[in-house]
């Protein structure tokens, strides 16, 4: 009987440990699957861009550019080894463009007699990716879409997405050893770090356009040519929320509730914000934008606090600048 009790205690302890362990691994895998889903959708909508007519389907071009870019934004602030190993960090987006290099380099590109996706591949970052396409679709200087440039830039993006997809098993978003019971907390930590990076980046983007001299710093704004900075910002925040919701099941009920309250507040603010940054002024919504920024910062801080309290995971404990 005594042996049976001992066995039961040991079995129960192991079972409890296994349940907890599985929950961590499951959430981390779900996080990874979510990120992979965004890469798939980038691919789908970038491929659609390639097949549309520049002359008669501008609306569809714009629509697919927006969708593809919004999915790219879901992965763009993360440390993905498949991107860094292939030096693709600046191949999809060039931001911040403090010196308006996109316009300078695109003008040079468009003055070239002929170019292909290979030509784009060997060119500098400002003529690659979503902002380069945005220039072709929206810049005031573009009376009509330069289709050769659009197709070359889009094909270059597709080539890079194909490269990412082909190597994603080799360079996992969460390393295989972090999905084992022994090291799964490191996997969860990577996922939370990636979410934290995402939140920090979108906070920085909003901060860069919420100051008194916004009109002098127009280039700091994301997607300013298309006047869609806040449209993409809303997608960015929604991505962050989805990621947090996947990983927050690992937290205590009380902390899940705290996070959810802040997420609800964020969602309400998002519905009240316009898509066009300049409508913030015409609609007198500066105060709302500042409140929204404060809510984002609070969510970021809360996330750090609750994962430390519940999972003993520290975010950026050793990466403070200057030390």
């Amino acid at each position, binding site marked *: 009987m005594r042996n049976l009790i001992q066995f039961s205690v040991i079995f129960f302890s192991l079972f409890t440990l296994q349940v907890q362990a599985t929950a961590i691994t499951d959430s981390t895998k779900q996080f990874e699957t979510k990120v992979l889903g965004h890469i798939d959708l980038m691919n789908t909508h970038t491929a659609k861009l390639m097949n549309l007519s520049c002359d008669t389907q501008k609306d569809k071009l714009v629509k697919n550019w927006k969708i593809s870019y919004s999915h790219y934004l879901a992965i763009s602030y993360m440390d993905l080894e498949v991107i860094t190993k292939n030096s693709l960090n600046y191949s999809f987006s060039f931001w911040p463009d403090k010196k308006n290099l996109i316009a300078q380099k695109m003008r040079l590109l468009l003055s070239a007699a002929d170019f292909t996706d290979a030509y784009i591949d060997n060119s500098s970052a400002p003529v690659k990716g979503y902002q380069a396409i945005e220039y072709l679709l929206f810049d005031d200087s573009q009376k009509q879409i330069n289709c050769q440039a659009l197709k070359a830039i889009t094909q270059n993006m597709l080539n890079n997405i194909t490269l990412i997809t082909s190597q994603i098993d080799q360079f996992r978003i969460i390393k295989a050893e972090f999905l084992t019971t022994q090291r799964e907390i490191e996997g969860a930590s990577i996922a939370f770090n990636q979410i934290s990076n995402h939140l920090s980046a979108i906070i920085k983007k909003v901060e860069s356009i919420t100051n008194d001299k916004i009109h002098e710093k127009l280039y700091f704004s994301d997607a300013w040519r298309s006047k869609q900075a806040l449209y993409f910002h809303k997608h960015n925040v929604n991505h962050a929320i989805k990621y947090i919701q996947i990983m927050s099941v690992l937290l205590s009920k009380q902390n899940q509730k705290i996070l959810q309250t802040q997420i609800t507040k964020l969602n309400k603010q998002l519905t009240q914000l316009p898509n066009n940054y300049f409508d913030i002024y015409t609609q007198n919504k500066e105060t709302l934008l500042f409140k929204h920024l404060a809510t984002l910062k609070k969510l970021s801080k809360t996330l750090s606090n609750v994962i430390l309290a519940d999972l003993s995971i520290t975010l*950026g*404990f050793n*990466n*403070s600048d200057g*030390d």
Partner: protein
Amino acid sequence: MHRRELLKYSILMGSLNLLNCSKAIKKEVLIIGSGKLNNKWVLSAINSTGHTLYQKKLPKRAHHISKNKNNSHGLVIARRPGNYARLFDSKTGQTIKEINAPNNHFFFGHSCFSKNNIIISCGDQTSLGKLAIYDLALNFEYFIELNNYGPHQIELINNNQIAVAVGGLQTIERKILNMEDFKSELIIVDVSINTIINRYKLANSKLSIRHLHTHNSKVIVAAQLPDRDTLFENLNTALIYELKDNQLKAIIHPNWNTFKQYIASISFDDTHLIATSPKGHTLGIWSISDNAILFDTQLSFVDVAGITQFQNTAFWSTGLGYSSSKYNDVIITSKQEIHWDNHWNTFYV
């Protein structure tokens, strides 16, 4: 070593590796660092297999631990902008003496021992840098003015010469005030004659020298790019430089993608150089003879920062609470409760 090999060796974690590594460590070693444990700041010592030997409570967050090579004394010092320094016996962790920073001054988190002194990097209220010179019993003696902002790591080159990594950044608390025009430099000071004997600047003025290491009179410094908005223009810049022929020569370009233009700790011996980037969760090991990369792994060691070397074995720590050692191709990882802070140091039993 690259990812596939790393996986292979990670799988080998366990008693077999402990055995292998304990064979490698001929003389027992104490690895001492600081960190956070249950919401308290502590000084912690572990042995080469990751077993915790002692933990001592600290008043506030600490940063670096320096050692007196002539006895068992160590000095743990508060993180910037910090106010305390504690002299302790590394064998037991017992406090010998604890002091506050001089009036109207703060500590930057680093110190070193010379033959006759303890030297601490220090700043006044404007963050103008000084070296605070103490005797070996931690009694204040005098200041050496550096006439620049933000001295950080300091190490002994020989009996009296000290290498000082001066970031150049003027800060209030931790906010940078002079990002546009800071001037970073490596300063060499002779503490026996209270004199700055040389100043060396990097060719790229956007870099800030924050960390360094000395070994057999050789000085190697690690720089960071503090202004993240200038990243694109500084992708190809070297971060690790050697003081040679009276100038700072670029020797290593860590992959900016993985190191994020940020190095938290650097260490080298006769054969290997190690640097960590907690921003990239990355550790790199290079050959000293030809600067070739030997081990480069991204996202494998979460929040990795502290490093030290002992008898051809590399040790490193993470903010998540892991410690690892690497001897040849064998990596052993163990978990401690503590969230390890930026720096580690080895002491001998």
